[in-house]
């Protein structure tokens, strides 16, 4: 576990029959620190498409996700018999961290048995918590 990291992941995938792109998987990872400090930059810059939506879309999403993460951490603290607030104290907003909101585009894979589901190969995640949301975009890239 790396200190103070919780990651939020969104999968965006394309329907197999409509996908016209290559087999590339794409990721756009937006640092929690950059979101909370916007318009100040903590780690790096992002495409205008992202910065334009930072206040109205990304920040509300990240803040709500942090509420969920803190709830889960609070439950873990209690159920593990740790002192109250001990896990939350490792994930405070004023500490720089590697937490990020991660947008993922996974290519469709016609002919594969998992072609109708967003999926990604076996891998190790980092940080304390990872929450994942899925969306199939059947008109994506048409």
């Amino acid at each position, binding site marked *: 576990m790396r200190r103070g990291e919780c990651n939020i992941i969104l999968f965006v995938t394309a329907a197999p029959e409509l996908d016209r792109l290559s087999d590339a998987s794409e990721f756009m990872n937006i640092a929690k620190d950059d979101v909370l400090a916007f318009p100040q930059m903590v780690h790096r810059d992002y495409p205008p498409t992202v910065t334009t939506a930072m206040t109205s879309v990304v920040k509300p999403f990240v803040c709500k996700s942090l509420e969920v993460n803190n709830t889960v951490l609070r439950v873990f603290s209690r159920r593990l018999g740790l002192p109250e607030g001990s896990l939350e104290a490792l994930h405070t907003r004023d500490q720089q961290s*590697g937490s990020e909101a991660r947008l993922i585009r996974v290519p469709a894979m016609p002919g594969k048995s998992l072609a109708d589901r967003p999926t990604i190969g076996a891998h190790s995640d980092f940080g304390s918590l990872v929450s994942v949301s899925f969306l199939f975009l059947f008109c994506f890239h048409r």
Partner: protein
Amino acid sequence: MFKLGAEVFSLPLEEKLQYEQGDSGRSFGFEILLFPMAQDLTEA
């Protein structure tokens, strides 16, 4: 947020690569993997 994802990935690759995450050790920014990551678990 999903709409933002669709908009971001619809950008020209050249534009997205301007924000490539690099080799700093952090994963912030854009990354593209040019090989299939998904595995057909039924073939495992």
